[in-house]
C-alpha cells in the first residue's frame, strides 16, 4: 500500500497537474542554449556593421546574404520563443486572479507570435527583394 494519491498511470506519464510535465522547463533551456551563439553573433555583427557604412542600402545588402538572412530568422525565432516562455513564468508568478492571468497569458502568446511572424517576414522581404 502506498500513501501516494497519484495513480500509477499518472506517475508513469509524469505530466503533473499542469498536464505538460517538464516541457516548458526543457524548451526554455534548449532555446537558451541555441541563443548563446545566436545572440553573440547578432551583437558582434551589429557592432561590426556600425564601423562601416550604415546607410539603408548597406544594411539591406548585409541582410540579403543568405547566411545572414537564415541566421537572423533563427535568431528571431529562438529569441521570441525564449522570450515568450520567460514572460509566461513572470505572469504565472505575479498575476494572481485566474481570469486576468488567462487573459495576460494569451496576450503574451499572441504578441510574441505576431512579432515572430512580422520579424521573419521582414527579413525574407529584405533578403528576397
Amino acid at each position: 500500500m502506498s500513501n501516494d494519491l497519484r495513480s500509477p498511470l499518472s506517475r508513469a506519464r509524469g505530466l503533473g497537474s499542469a498536464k505538460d510535465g517538464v516541457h516548458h522547463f526543457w524548451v526554455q533551456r534548449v532555446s537558451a542554449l541555441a541563443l548563446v551563439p545566436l545572440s553573440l553573433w547578432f551583437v558582434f555583427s551589429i557592432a561590426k556593421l556600425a564601423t562601416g557604412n550604415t546607410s539603408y542600402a548597406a544594411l539591406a545588402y548585409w541582410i540579403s546574404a543568405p547566411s545572414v538572412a537564415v541566421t537572423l530568422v533563427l535568431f528571431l525565432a529562438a529569441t521570441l520563443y525564449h522570450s515568450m516562455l520567460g514572460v509566461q513564468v513572470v505572469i504565472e508568478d505575479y498575476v494572481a486572479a485566474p481570469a486576468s492571468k488567462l487573459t495576460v497569458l494569451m496576450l503574451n502568446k499572441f504578441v510574441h507570435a505576431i512579432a515572430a511572424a512580422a520579424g521573419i517576414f521582414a527579413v525574407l522581404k529584405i533578403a528576397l527583394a
Partner: protein
Amino acid sequence: MSSKTPADPRPLSPFMLGQYYRFQWTSLLSFAHRITGIGLTAGALLVVGWLTAMAGGPKIYAMVGPHITAWYGQILLFCWTWALMYHLGNGVRHLFWDVGMGFDLKTAERSGYAVVLVSLVLTVAAWAVARLA
C-alpha cells in the same frame, strides 16, 4: 485560504526586502536576471520594429535610423548590450546549475562575480569593435 481579505495580513515576498530579508549578492543577481529578461523582451520587439521599418523601404526606415545614432539611442543600445550579455552569462550559470554543478554557496557567489565581470568585458568588447575597429 481563498478569502480575499486575509484576517492576518502577512508580509509577502517583495515586502520582505529590507525589513526581514538579509541582502545577498546572489539574490540581487537573480532579480537582475528577471529584470534584464523583461527588458530584453522589449528589446526583441524593438528589433522586430527595426527590421519591419527596413522592410518598409528607405523612406520608412529614415524615420527609425536617426533615433539609433542619436545620443539617447546610443545610451539605450549600450545598456541593452549589457543587459543581453548579463542575461546570457547568467543564463549559462543557470544551465550549469540545471546539470547540478556549482550549487554550493561559495561557488554560486564566485560564479556570480564572474558573470558580472564577463558581461562587462563582453559589453566593452562589442563597443570596442563598433567604435574602434
